[in-house]
């Protein structure tokens, strides 16, 4: 009975989320819709980070770099190889997935802080590498699809025709990012409830115990990084679209990687709904901080203070709060 209830609650939450995504653009201004679309990209990347850190217990400070891999895949394929931008999104996911597998290889040997440094090295090296191979990546100038491939950039002219209707570009990007985000969140939900998710959690809770019950820990760690890379790559690919079809090495400095970790932990690792809140946190709180005072440095002080306060007041993150609030409701059902 309780199992049926839990599934029913899950379906109800999913339906509510879909309904929210469908109606929200009607209430949002054009600028706000664009900001929410950006948050949608973070949401997807954080979902991936949650699989690695929240469910498998492996720290990654390199997910910004995996986003960069996805973003550059989209930019290069669209600018130089005649692809339409939308079709490159799954390809960007796959390329970043390969990069994620590679990033996961050190996780077979390293753990804790040593793994953190290895992934951080990837994040630090990424902008330098992007500048170095300028023939492919456009160097520090980056790639501007608006200039180089206007006719293959969906919605770059201000509106998009979908199913016989005309939709403003930013609303379209909102639907695109959050639509893909919800599908991938559903996929993550199925994944963590299945056999693979059980193996992930076993590796997180006790590597030795997992290994002695026949789980190939190295394989599942690498797998977690690979799947997570797919998410980050899709997020990065969409990030190009919502950044006015432009990407450069400074888009994905190591601060992006740190920001994603902040989003995941503030959202509450291990909670899928919390990941959306974490994404909204890293998208909107810096802006609100800047509204409080625009003295040099002041926004940074307020943003940092917000992070510290959330962590002190809600050690389980925003998702933990959500769970505490909804628990009495679902229990009474």
């Amino acid at each position, binding site marked *: 009975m309780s199992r049926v209830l839990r599934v029913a609650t899950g379906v109800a939450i999913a339906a509510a989320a879909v309904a929210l995504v469908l109606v929200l653009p009607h209430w949002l201004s054009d600028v706000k819709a664009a900001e929410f679309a950006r948050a949608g990209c973070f949401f997807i990347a954080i979902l991936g980070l949650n699989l690695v*850190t929240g469910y498998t217990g492996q*720290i990654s400070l390199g997910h910004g770099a995996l986003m960069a891999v996805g973003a550059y895949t989209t930019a290069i394929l669209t600018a130089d190889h005649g692809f339409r931008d939308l079709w490159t999104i799954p390809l960007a996911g796959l390329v970043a997935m390969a990069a994620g597998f590679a990033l996961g290889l*050190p996780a077979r*040997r*390293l*753990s804790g*802080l*040593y793994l*953190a*440094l*290895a992934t*951080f*090295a990837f994040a*630090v*090296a990424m902008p*330098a*590498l992007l*500048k*170095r191979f300028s023939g492919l990546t456009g160097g520090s100038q980056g790639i501007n699809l608006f200039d180089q491939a206007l006719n293959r950039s969906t919605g770059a002219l201000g509106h998009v025709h979908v199913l016989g209707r005309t939709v403003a570009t930013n609303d379209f990007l909102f639907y695109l990012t959050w639509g893909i985000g919800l599908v991938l969140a559903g996929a993550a939900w199925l994944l963590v409830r299945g056999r693979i998710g059980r193996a992930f959690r076993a590796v997180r809770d*006790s590597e*030795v*115990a997992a290994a*002695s019950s026949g789980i190939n820990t190295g394989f599942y760690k690498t797998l977690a990084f690979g799947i997570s890379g797919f998410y980050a790559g899709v997020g990065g690919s969409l990030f190009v679209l919502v950044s006015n079809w432009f990407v450069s090495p400074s888009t994905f400095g190591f601060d992006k990687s*740190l920001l994603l*970790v*902040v989003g995941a*932990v*503030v959202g509450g*690792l291990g909670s899928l709904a919390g990941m959306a809140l974490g994404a909204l946190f890293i998208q909107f709180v810096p802006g609100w901080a800047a509204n409080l005072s625009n*003295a*040099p*440095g*002041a*926004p*940074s*002080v*307020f*943003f*940092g*203070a*917000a*992070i*510290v306060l959330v*962590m*002190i007041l809600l*050690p389980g993150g925003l998702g933990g709060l959500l769970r505490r609030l909804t628990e009495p409701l679902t229990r009474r059902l």
Partner: protein
Amino acid sequence: MVFAVDWAGVAQQVVAGLSSGGIYAILAVAFVLIYRATGVVNFAQGELAMFSTFVAWTLTQHGFGYWPAFVVTVLASFAGGIALEGVVIRPVERASVLTIAIVTIGLFFVVNGAAFWIWSPEVKSMPNAFSTRPIRIAGVAFSISDLGIIGVSLLAVLVLWLFFRFTKLGLAMRAAALNPESSRLTGIRVSWTIALGWGLATALGAVAGLMAAPPLGSFDQNFMQPILLYAFAGAVLGGIDSALGAVIGSLVLGVFLNLLGTYVSWVGTDLRQAAALAVILGVLLVRPAGLLGTTVVRRV
């Protein structure tokens, strides 16, 4: 290709590398201190060092000489570190390691922003700690400043080692880091030793910042960030739970970076960080717990 090796040049580069490595070493030891006490990397370590350096800069603007400002700042940083631990770390003391790490990332933003807010973004310059004249040893000119920085770094680490090895308080701190539960039973106030660790780490950071700033000529609020990265890398290279390892790792890294920058031209400044980190990654894959770190064996 190099046909005739210029040994005097190599010696100069090694000393210069040891000097920057010494600065990384001080900060790396600060990392190890907090890591051993709480199991967390303090991401705000470098920014706290930067903040201390700006405090010292303000003192030098009000008539203090370099060394008086140095002493006042290091003592103030010690007190500030203890206070900071009480305000932001104590409330999350029992939370997960990741939660505490995120708090220190928040602290990173706060301290960096506060320094921009207080001291405005234009660059500052610090009076020199040491004579700028070169000194000749066996016919090779070395910078007195480099030698001085190496001396101060080794002295700071030595004082710390003596403190931990030969004082009762140092013993209590080591015990609390090793086994908090048993230490509580023997009457050690573990929360207090953690606060003390933060105080010492922040004071060490101040030493690192004050050594690093003058040779830069001019510096701004972000000047400690690359140093933080190298100190972290040095600590991990040596083994994050070993202070001696952190010192050796940092010195090796400093020399390596300097030689790489001088003699391998295709690496350039852009790829220097990446190359250094790639080499460290290579070392870690062979020795997963760093050069001198202990491999943790857990009972299930």
